[in-house]
């Protein structure tokens, strides 16, 4: 009867794998990726998931097998002590190290593309200042220079044109925040005292054909205080025309004298 407990442990890998497969097939998986480099991130994620998944299942099966085989009621032999196997220890040190080294090198290009190869000539520049608990966004306006009279200000509402290289200059006014665009696979801590460049390109407006604008989440991913849970903004990806219209609207509102 106590072998039942070994079988109970077996449910862990079975249920775990089943839930994973069921979620992936029923929409509980990654958000829609509309970015140009997002597929690399997703690929790396899936690679790690498969690798760790296979190792996990194998480890669990071995665990259950040992529990079953050496169950105290069925196996009355006394315990044997051993000084260990030096060869085994070498094997199970080298193989994981090699795997980790492989993963580290495998992802280097993806990391560099997202974090290190700063594009020199972005199409759109926008400044995003994170503050407790909102995102203050500033476009440089017609003169293309920040911190001049014609800058356009908005809160929590980041508009970008589709298919164009966007450069975000990320700042923080008070504490650590994190600029997280799930649908673009972009995540970057906003550090007070630093101006951090974040670049991306939205490849399409949405998965709906013919859509000219679509709204996506912009959320804070670094605990910043009591309002962190509701520090949400929206990213609107739209056609160039709609984007220009948005900026023109902003300017008109901002210069209102009536």
């Amino acid at each position, binding site marked *: 009867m106590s072998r039942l407990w070994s079988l109970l442990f077996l449910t862990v890998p079975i249920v775990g794998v089943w839930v994973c497969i069921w979620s992936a097939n029923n929409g509980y998986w990654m958000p829609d990726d509309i970015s140009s480099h997002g597929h690399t991130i997703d690929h790396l994620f899936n690679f790690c998931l498969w690798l760790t998944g296979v190792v996990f299942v194998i480890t669990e099966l071995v665990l259950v097998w040992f529990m079953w085989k050496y169950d105290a009621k069925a196996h009355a032999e006394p315990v044997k002590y051993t000084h260990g196997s030096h060869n085994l220890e070498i094997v199970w040190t080298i193989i994981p190290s090699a795997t980790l080294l492989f993963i580290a090198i495998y992802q280097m290009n993806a990391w560099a593309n997202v974090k290190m190869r700063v594009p020199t000539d972005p199409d759109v520049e926008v400044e995003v200042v994170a503050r407790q608990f*909102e995102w203050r966004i500033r476009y440089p306006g017609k003169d293309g220079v*920040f911190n001049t009279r014609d800058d356009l200000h908005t809160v929590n509402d980041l508009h970008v044109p589709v298919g164009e290289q966007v450069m975000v*200059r990320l700042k923080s006014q008070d504490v650590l925040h994190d600029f997280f665009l799930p649908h673009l696979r972009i995540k970057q801590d906003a550090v007070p*005292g630093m101006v951090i460049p974040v670049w991306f390109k939205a490849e399409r407006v949405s998965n709906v054909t013919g859509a000219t604008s679509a709204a996506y989440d912009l959320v804070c991913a670094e605990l910043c205080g009591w309002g962190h849970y509701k520090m949400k903004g929206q990213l609107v990806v739209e056609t160039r025309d709609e984007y220009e219209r948005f900026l023109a609207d902003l300017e008109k509102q*901002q210069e209102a004298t009536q």
Partner: protein
Amino acid sequence: MMGLSPEKSTNRAAGESLRGWAAALCLLAALGCTKADPAQFKLNMEGLDPADFVASGSTDEALAERIAKIEQEPDPDEEQLSELQNAQSANARAKGLRDLKVALHALFGTPDEPFVLKELQTQPDTPEVGFDLAKLRRAAGPVSSLEDGTQIGLYRQHCVHCHGITGDGVGPTAAFLTPYPRDFRRGIFKFTSTSESAKPTKDDLKRTLKQGIAGTAMPSFALLPEADIDALVEYVKYLALRGEMETALMSYVDAGDPVPLTHEELLSELQNYASMWDSAADEVITPEAPPELDEPGLLASIEAGRKLFLDAKAQCVQCHGPTGLGDGAEKRFDVWNEAKTDTNLAFFSLPKQQLQPRNLRSGVYRGGRRPVDLYRRIQAGIKGAQMPSMGQTPAKPSGLTPTEIWNLVHYVQSLPYEPTSETGSPERSIQRDRN
């Protein structure tokens, strides 16, 4: 297997009891997962009663009897007499407060079920005037949602943690904030489009909700559905009116007079305040359009504005300082903090907070950065925050003219971009930015 050894039988017993526990746990978990209505956190009304409600231990008749007896004595005990008289006024005060509670309940309902008198509700032909009961109901009550996703209990979901359940600006998070959240109960709101003594319009409240207040903890609710924002505006107005009425009725209690409890008396008192809210839309300041200026014209306007800024007529320097940094000599309090004196501090949960005149070189404008917003700040001042109304009005013909105000607006707008306002070196990527 002859029989169970002592160790094995204890193990078996332990195993059985463990199985029993596991089975019981699984049963409870299954029951807990049944579909039931989610918990609704109705408001604990008893917790809102102040300590004053507790009267003295004796009835009015008993006290009167004892006072009469003492007064008849040849040498009345003054101490005992004054004690009894204190008890009498405690009784009167408690009765007054109970009457106040009844009156407010009759006029405004409760936070879970608000209402306003029929006379104050919107009529279909004048949607701008009065209260929309449906919107109030949406904003009030415990937080929940309907099947189609409509949110109920909006005020408690978004506002109560700062502004408090009565709109008194003393929610749980208020203690950590500078400046404190607004106390709605005075009916005074800082950033409005209306003249000096008028209430804010619905649009003003909507604008504050939508853009937040830059530089404070008031966030932007622009991403909420329009209907939610309308409901919240209605509820804020409701709380403000209720607060004003509460203050008015409280003056009866403080004076020792009986609180009016008839429908006519209460309605007429209420309509004094409600009519001010209804007429707010008539008091909107629409500035004359500024002249179209080319580059040299704009510079001239900015220069004229600078001279005005430093001039005694405009009174800017005494609070904002000669360089506009907000370091003027005057140290004042806004009306909400002014009410906190040395003697009554015990009534207030939060300490007194100094008023800080705006640093005009930061480029952060709390009431909005549009030229019309800046114009209105100068023309009508900022209610409650000691920024005086400087513009010309029929009552004050010596105020600043529209041209003068536009010059000041241009000057104020130019301040953040003056070379002296720059901080640090020009930005490069990933560099230390001293803000």
